[in-house]
């Protein structure tokens, strides 16, 4: 499946400055594996040591958070857009 991945400004430097990357894959996990093979600098930002989605990253497939779908096993269709969002937090 041909999908588009939208990257936040913070991660674009790891992807040759691109804001959007076209990748093929049947699931989010497959697409991420392809993405980090192409741009190894993204691996530590997207995945933790066990290969799961990093807790400081949120991923949306179109309008749905993949954590409420099937996580990295979420199936993809042609034209899906994956948005990678940084977790933004703080406090006193």
């Amino acid at each position: 499946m041909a999908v588009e991945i939208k990257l936040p400004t913070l991660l674009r430097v790891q992807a040759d400055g691109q804001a959007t990357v076209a990748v093929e894959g049947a699931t989010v996990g497959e697409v991420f594996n392809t993405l980090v093979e192409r741009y190894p600098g993204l691996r530590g930002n997207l995945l933790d040591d066990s290969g799961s989605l990093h807790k400081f990253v949120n991923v949306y497939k179109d309008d749905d958070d993949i954590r409420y779908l099937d996580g990295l096993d979420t199936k993809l269709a042609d034209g899906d857009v994956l948005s990678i969002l940084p977790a933004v937090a703080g406090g006193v």
Partner: protein
Amino acid sequence: MTSAFAQPTLRLTESQYATIVGSCYDGLPDEACGLLVGPLGGNGEPTGAVSEARPCRNADASAVTYTIDPRDMLGAMRAAEARGDEIVGVWHSHTHTEAYPSPTDVRQAVDPAWLYVIVSLRDQMPVLRSYRIRGGEIAEVGIELDRAPRTGIPTG
């Protein structure tokens, strides 16, 4: 001594200032938060101009921590993309402490290019200050308020 990265000056319209501070009061007793959308300069850094101040939900619903609701982050990213802008900063309120980044704020500052705005509601009047946070280092930046023209008839 002013730090070398104590820039750019944050430029807000009165309306944006009201949106930011108003959202902080509206969020009480919890911390409030929001995202700043604006242009990047040729160097890839925020220019300090803000095209939109977007209040966001605090997913923590807490008086001592905030997390930008990811749904609102997605909305802000799409709005920025539609304008040809980027997300250039974040604001949040400190309900009972000063308008200065806490150790938590510094540790969790996600993007070194962003402007970090903190609104303190500790005192009678709100205090809004803006910072860059990079590599654990904090630098305060200036703020310019773009005031709308006053057209009232002078008295006396």
